[in-house]
């Protein structure tokens, strides 16, 4: 690389002789704390925050009204009907659960692979995961019809009916998978946040702040003995969350793959769903973090290199998803089952052909722009592409669902038309998501302060008189 590059300000260049800095501008530990805490300490958040928050709350109220309407009228207010008994609710469910995969992937899998760049983005990504899973859980949650007996989802002994869930049904696996995922993500997120909440506690000025952050930080002191068990627990949770995150979308895909419908009954579904989930999740992280980073002046912590890495993952998973689309067609032809063949030709050129092409364009073609470095490093470009990816991924689930309209018997064919409530609830779920995310940005540490300090150049490139040899091995340590 050119000798003129100042590595402490630009970390996008590849120089094999040195590890790229993950914190730029020579920030000290104190600077890092200040930078993150500033968002919370500022008397007022930036104006744009109010705009986004306000809009989100309005959408959230629309969702609330729709839900009330739904509770009083029953699930008939949706467009679900023969032959599509699962319309928007399951499309939205799979869409949101998919998005909810990036957080745990970043915090668990990248942690086990010692990808230190995860530290700047994992907190926000985990928060996003939890909020996305909340949105996801909403849809099947209200889809059950008689809400007041929701507990029938779980193996609860009933008073006098020997009534239990059917443990061989993928829909029940879903309850367990999504429930476990939401819980474990929440534990992981909260546990990771405790040291940073303690930072907020120690900087609290008002009594209320002191009380709330004091309570939430559980009396954390940063003792070495505590850190030792904490790191062990973090590693174990990461090791647990890694297979978990892969299992969740696998099981969601079983909802489809275990049924006998042409276009659904395929073994490629689990890997293909997981790749799609990571794809959409990372796209959502980019969509959220780029504006956050500019708004809250986090450029030195969430560097262009971080964003570029995420864009590379988006491109890679995009290619996997594209390959899966291709393989599906190949198998439909190679398998020689006429129903299967028809299902796929119908997908591309049939009654919902347009959504298929929206999906292919957004998911397969557009992310290919990330082969070009300019798109990977240009903020506006990456946000636009990531939004396209999310649109594409929503349509992917829609396309899969619409296989229901053309099954084996032409006499049972039909079309699906979403109702107004369907559409408003989809929009409203974004309101829920952004409301939660805005509150998170304002009141919680959106960057894992202690983890970033651990990988900052100040810790890693210590030029001291090393009387302790264990300092030398810092390079790859977490």
């Amino acid at each position: 690389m050119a000798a003129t590059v100042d590595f402490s300000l630009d970390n996008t260049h590849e120089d094999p002789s040195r590890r790229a800095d993950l914190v730029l501008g020579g920030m000290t530990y104190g600077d890092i704390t200040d930078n993150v805490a500033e968002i919370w300490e500022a008397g007022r958040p930036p104006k744009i925050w109010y705009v986004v928050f306000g809009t989100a709350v309005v959408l959230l109220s629309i969702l609330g009204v729709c839900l009330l309407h739904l509770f009083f009228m029953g699930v008939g207010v949706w467009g679900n009907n023969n032959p599509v008994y699962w319309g928007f609710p399951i499309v939205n469910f799979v869409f949101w659960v998919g998005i909810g995969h990036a957080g745990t992937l970043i915090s668990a899998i990248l942690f086990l692979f010692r990808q230190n760049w995860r530290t700047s983005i994992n907190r926000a990504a985990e928060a996003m995961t939890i909020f996305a899973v909340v949105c996801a859980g909403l849809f099947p949650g209200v889809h059950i019809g008689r809400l007041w007996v929701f507990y029938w989802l779980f193996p609860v002994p009933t008073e006098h009916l020997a009534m239990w869930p059917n443990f061989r049904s993928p829909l029940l696996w879903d309850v367990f998978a999504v429930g476990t995922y939401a819980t474990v993500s929440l534990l992981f997120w909260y546990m990771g946040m405790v040291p940073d909440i303690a930072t907020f506690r120690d900087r609290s000025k008002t009594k209320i702040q002191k009380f709330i952050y004091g309570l939430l930080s559980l009396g954390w002191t940063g003792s070495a003995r505590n850190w030792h068990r904490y790191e062990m627990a973090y590693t174990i949770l990461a090791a647990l969350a890694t297979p978990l995150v892969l299992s969740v979308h696998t099981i969601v895909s079983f909802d489809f793959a275990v049924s006998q419908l042409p276009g659904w009954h395929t073994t490629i579904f689990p890997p293909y769903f997981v790749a799609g989930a990571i794809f959409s999740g990372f796209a959502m992280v980019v969509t959220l973090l780029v504006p956050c980073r500019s708004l809250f002046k986090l450029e030195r912590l969430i560097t262009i290199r971080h964003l570029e890495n995420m864009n590379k993952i988006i491109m890679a998973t995009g290619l996997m998803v594209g390959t899966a689309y291709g393989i599906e067609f190949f198998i439909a032809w190679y398998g020689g089952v006429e129903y299967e063949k028809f299902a796929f030709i119908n997908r591309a050129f049939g009654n919902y052909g347009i959504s298929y092409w929206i999906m292919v364009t957004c998911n397969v073609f557009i992310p290919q722009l990330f082969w070009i470095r300019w798109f990977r490093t240009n903020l506006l470009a990456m946000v636009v592409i990531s939004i396209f990816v999310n649109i594409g991924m929503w349509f992917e689930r829609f396309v899969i669902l619409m296989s229901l309209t053309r099954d084996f018997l032409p006499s049972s064919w039909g079309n699906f038309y979403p109702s107004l409530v369907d559409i408003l609830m989809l929009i409203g779920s974004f309101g829920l998501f952004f409301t939660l995310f805005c509150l998170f940005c304002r009141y919680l540490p959106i960057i894992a302060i202690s983890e970033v300090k651990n990988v900052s150049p100040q810790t890693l490139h210590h030029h001291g008189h090393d009387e302790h040899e264990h300092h030398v091995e810092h390079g790859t340590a977490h």
Partner: protein
Amino acid sequence: MAHSHKHDTPVETGPSSKLISLVAQFDDPHSLVAACDRAREAGYKKMDAYSPFPVHGIDDAIGIRRTRLPFFVLAVGLGACAFALLLQYYVNATDESPIFPGYKFFISGKPLFSLPANIPVTFEIIVLSSAFATFFGMWYLNGLPRFANPLHRLPMFRRVTNDKFFLVLEAEDEKFSESRSRQQLEEWGAKAIEECHEDLTDQKIPNGFRLAGIVFLFALLLPPALIYRVSGMTYRQPRLHVVPDMDWQDRYNTQTRGPNIGTPESPRYLFADGRAMQRPVSGTIARGDLTESDEYFRGYKTGTLPVSEGAGPSAQDQDGQDQDGMATGTTPEPEWVDGFPEEVVVNTDFLKRGKQRFEIYCVACHGYDGNGEGLVNQRAVALAAAGEAAWTAAKSLHDPAVKAQPIGRIFDTISNGRATMGPYKDQIPVKDRWAITAYVRALQATGIRTPQELAEANSATPEAGQ
């Protein structure tokens, strides 16, 4: 950068409050580790280091042993695995338990319990339980949450979550002496040293909390008190039904009037006949009522039923009821089968079944050996002899007339009765009737003699009877 707070006036440390530790501040992780090493070498045992992030090498420096957390999590995970498998087995593959029984789900022809189908839930339960074990186990081992820690009183210590590093030597340590330890800390490069005193204010519970606690404790007593109060009481009201399950439903019962779609004054019912439940379309046969084979269901060769005048088609109705059979013995009979129909296989099990059914249904009159020693018959015969009842004695099954009968005819006797013996077609399923028939045949084959035969034999050769 330095971040200074306007903190409250330093805590009053009166002579009564004991010194519990010395807190030394360092500016970077490396000098902290160095100081820890020195402290360990100097023989300190009760000490701890505090830092804004986990400092590498510190575990060795202050001698922290590896945590047992992983083993705890492993144990919980294994337990969860067993629990999850048992739960699924109990719930979906058993239904014997008297309380909270499981329910045997037969679904899509899948086996009641098969590992592959139960793996996903097992996996999720393992992960969930292990995650809880990790999370709560970690806090437990760390002694957290702990909201009252004297260290938090030191203004300097607030920067432990920001940019400063601390070494704390506890006064309880054998090597600890206030002046010498302070001197040592300075030697090891401490940037600032403060004393941490026992915090007496911590022991005092705020008034509001105490009151709330007392109220809460009393509230806790309420549920058991209420339960005690209502246990064993009688009520006129139906009991409180918290979980309605599916006990009350809006529906019409059978044998009731259907919904009125007119007005109360001039009612019009949904169906012309006013019934809530409609009768099946004519020609509908309920499950299991299709009895086509004459051999099997009625015991005669197909098409051999003589059509008697006046009897009409009813003599041939589905039940195979031979309407005239009971009236007189003169009615022309169909050609009885003299063998077992192909639907039944006569073997030991079948005969055992026949014996068992015979002993339930026939023995009361015909007796165990078929000679009419049954208690009902004995009593009835006695009553008849006294002129108090009319009774034809149950015929011996070893009567030559009965022995000579074809198999189908005995089956018909059981099904439709014969003369004064009643029909058993509605009590005994077809297959069991054939089993009884087989058993009757087996009894006859034993060579048991009828009472008359016995009496005749006895009178002919008296000694043979003994």
